């Protein structure tokens, strides 16, 4: 009988290892001046260097070095005073030089750690993830295999190559083995990638968009009999491209391996591919006939030897750690956990903070960004921040606070801003969106409403206060929603002798 997850964990101890590839968001590539924009026409962002033309030579992008050092510092690593690039030699059509320029045995950052918090049965618990290394490398081009049924090179009729991605700077962050996570292994893996993503975002060094591939995770999983303290044979699940998938890939691998071991089968050291639909993995290349990459120091590049003073300058610019910042804001804004999580997941924490710093009430700022604006952004399939700025949102919130706009009017103002009708003030002027607060104007509308519904008015006079709703509604309708409903109620009740 197949083991389920709980049974698998009862019988085996999992050990993890996580490798995260991050595309840096530098303006130019790792070794040439080509642009790095995502989604450009194929082969328009190339030059002799990233096409590997004979005679061309690489020159290191200083910004990529800076980003790598920032990542290392944020992960509590030592920055190597001397590190080198190496060549990783293998043939593949999307690799222009048939070697990848990558750091091998002399990476730029080593020996760091990252603490992650997860909720356990015994409450919140901190797991320390040791980081082995952070190293730089260049991305390969992209192949599109056309005509085959699998989309893979075998069986394809022909292949198209796009070298726009060739030479984009990548940073690979590799953990040491992560033992003793027990049944929380999938959660720890997810929490680690989440925290890492938030740190990278706070550093501003990458777009960290898993769905676009600017952050990719490979998860190594091995099992050993429970309590044995041994280390089993590992599998490596490649290119897991969402946080949820990280968790699923790890739990799926634990179950798969446990069942094999239970049946007396051995675990093959291999690369596996995560299947998004089923949450399972399928086997890829076996690593048992290990490919020999014939690494040797890249003779075309001088060693990277960052100045110690520069490293300290960079250290001084490190932003507040995302986990610490979240805790601080949660208290300052008095936000419930769940709300905090949705703000983080929607990537709106910075935006809300900016709006609050412009004077808005934190609760209001949060509900505007997560509510109306996110809803409109979803409709348009764009990021909320591309529609409206924190300054504009803060202005709208201020106008509500001062009574110049009602919530309903404010929504129209926001909609106008998003439609490109100008600043909130311009929209208010152009659309004539003013709260009708002139008592005499309102009284005209109120009298008209009473005249049209005399019985309702009588009932109110008789003390049936809830009946006022119908008349208030009529007044609001007559004024096109521009009246302040509370004010209407006050005037109406007073007029009918109930004020």
């Amino acid at each position, binding site marked *: 009988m197949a083991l389920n997850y709980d049974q698998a964990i009862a019988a085996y101890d999992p050990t993890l290892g996580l490798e995260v590839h991050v595309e840096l968001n530098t303006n130019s590539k790792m070794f040439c001046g080509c642009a790095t924009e995502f989604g450009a026409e194929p082969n328009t962002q190339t030059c*002799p260097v990233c*096409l*590997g*033309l*004979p*005679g*061309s*030579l*690489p*020159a*290191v992008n200083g910004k990529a070095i800076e980003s790598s050092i920032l990542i290392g510092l944020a992960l509590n690593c030592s920055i190597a005073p001397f590190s080198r690039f190496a*060549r990783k*030699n293998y*043939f593949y*059509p999307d690799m*222009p*030089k*048939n*070697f990848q320029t990558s750091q091998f045995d002399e990476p730029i950052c080593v020996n760091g750690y990252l603490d992650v918090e997860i909720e356990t049965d015994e409450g919140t618990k901190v797991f320390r993830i040791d980081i082995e290394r952070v190293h730089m490398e260049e991305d390969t081009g992209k192949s599109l295999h056309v005509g085959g049924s699998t989309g893979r*090179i*075998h069986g394809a009729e022909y*292949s198209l*190559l796009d070298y726009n991605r060739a030479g984009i700077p990548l940073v690979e962050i590799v953990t040491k083995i992560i033992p003793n996570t027990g049944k929380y292994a999938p959660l720890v893996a997810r929490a680690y990638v989440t925290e890492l993503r938030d740190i990278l975002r706070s550093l501003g060094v990458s777009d960290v968009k898993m769905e676009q591939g600017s952050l990719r995770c490979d998860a190594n999983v091995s099992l050993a009999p429970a309590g044995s303290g041994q280390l089993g044979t590992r599998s490596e699940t490649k290119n897991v491209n969402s946080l949820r998938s990280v968790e699923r890939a790890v739990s799926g691998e634990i179950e798969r391996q446990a069942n094999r071991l239970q049946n007396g089968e051995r675990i093959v050291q291999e690369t596996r591919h995560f299947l998004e639909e089923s949450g399972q993995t399928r086997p890829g290349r076996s690593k048992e006939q290990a490919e*020999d990459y*014939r*690494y*040797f120091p890249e*003779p*075309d*590049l*001088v060693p990277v030897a960052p100045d110690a003073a520069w490293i300290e300058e960079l250290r001084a610019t490190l932003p507040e750690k995302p986990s610490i910042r979240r805790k601080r804001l949660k208290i300052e804004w008095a936000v419930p956990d769940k709300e905090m999580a949705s703000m983080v997941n929607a990537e709106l924490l910075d935006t809300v903070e900016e709006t609050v710093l412009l004077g808005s009430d934190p609760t209001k700022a949060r509900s505007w960004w997560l509510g109306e604006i996110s809803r409109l952004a979803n409709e348009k399939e764009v990021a909320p921040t591309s529609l409206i700025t924190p300054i504009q949102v803060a202005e709208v919130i201020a106008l509500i606070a001062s009574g110049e706009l009602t919530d309903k009017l404010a929504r129209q103002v926001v909609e106008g801003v998003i439609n490109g009708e100008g600043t909130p003030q311009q929209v208010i002027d152009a659309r004539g969106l003013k709260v009708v607060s002139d008592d005499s104007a309102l009284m005209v509308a109120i009298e008209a409403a009473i005249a049209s519904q005399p019985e309702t008015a009588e009932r109110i006079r008789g003390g049936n206060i809830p009946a006022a709703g119908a008349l208030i509604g009529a007044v609001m309708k007559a004024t096109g929603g521009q009246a302040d409903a509370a004010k209407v109620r006050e005037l109406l009740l007073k007029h009918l002798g109930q004020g």
Partner: protein
Amino acid sequence: MIHSTAAEMATKLAAGEISSVELTQQHLDRISVVDGQVHAFLYVDTEGALSQAAAVDAKRVAGEKLSPLAGVPLALKDVLTQKGIPTTCGSKILEGWRPPYDSTIVSKLKSAGIVILGKTNMDEFAMGSSTENSAYGPSHNPWDLTRIPGGSGGGSAASLAAFEAPLAMGTDTGGSIRQPAAVTGTVGVKPTYGGVSRYGLVAFSSSLDQAGPCARTVLDAALLHEAIAGYDPRDSTSINAPVPAVVAAAKKLDVKGMKIGIVKELSGDGYQAGVRSRFDEAIEELVNAGAEIVEVSCPNFEYALAAYYLIAPSEASSNLARFDSMRYGIRVGDDGVRGAEEVMKMTREVGFGKEVKRRIILGTYALSSGYYDAYYGSAQKVRTLITQDFAAAFSKADVLVSPTCPTTAFKIGEKSDDPLAMYLNDIATIPVNMAGIGGMSLPVGLAPEDGLPVGFQIMSPAMKDDLMYQVGGTLEAALLRKWGSPILSNAPALGAN
């Protein structure tokens, strides 16, 4: 005036006594007369050269300030990219490739107004000492057409000795500038590693390759050296420091008080008698000129050749991986059925010659896991030891000297079946590349036994290239006084029949 020096041509051009178009045409005419015998060129860019020359003439007429060598023609080794001009590196695999960009050297030559006549023959991917490894047939030594002109830059050296060009560009990984200079009676200089940009030099062995000037006189080489040298941000191994004042040094003609070290390990057994006697006479000239001679020992040089044949093939095996038919050059076996990997294999099988394959296999083996430390790792240690030997020697002498090669030019075909005998040609030149220092070869006479030119090597510390020019210029002047005419006046006439 094709028999003049480049400096003399430059003077006449500046004085308006000849136009660059006329001078270029004279060389193109000479090429069409003699290159059928010499085969120095793989490609002659008649139209491009004449239009470059016309542009320089127009600038001169307009009174623009021009570089010292503006309007003087040059032959370019086919390993350097020139936009739109076929670049084969002597290999079939690159047949038909026209690079979309200029190497930094070509950009500098163009901006200096130096007229590029065409591309010269070479051993395939600069691997060889005779040009016999060119996929397009060997070049011939103008001194004796049955002999090799050296290699890999035999085409460049032969073009100078045959008066097809007054200047040429070479590249030197283990002696590919200096050995051809030695066997053709011309001057060749390998500058300090990093002194001249490698951007656009199709790599053989990245940590050893260095482009440099080839000429018929030391001063001409110095003038070309200053035109092509200097820091280039596109080559991260290029040195960000002022170019040594080599032209001034070549004109000094004075070595009084200089200490010149004879490298014990680069003389004696294995060197042809005539090579040794001409070397000794050159030393006498330097003594007469006031230099002090010291003997130095570099014990680790004996491992240089073995280490070189691990490092250079290792780097080559990786550098040459890009020739896979996917993006440029020839493609073999693409019938719409075969996969990419098979087409790569078939192309490389057909496209690379025997020596290139030999070195790719050697290098692939040396870098393999399990062998890396024993081969590549040990070779790098030898390299460090050689550098230390040079440092110790330079503490006793300003420059070091040796014969450039053990022998004069050998016969075409004589060593082509014996790679080891061929490799031994570079025994005296290889240590210079291993240490990244400067090296020059200049002619010091003809060997009495065969009447062929003998080369004299001068080695100078890194970024002190001026010292070898100073010694070379002085020695050249002394020998010219003794001989009465340049060595090349003894070479047989070409193109008669």
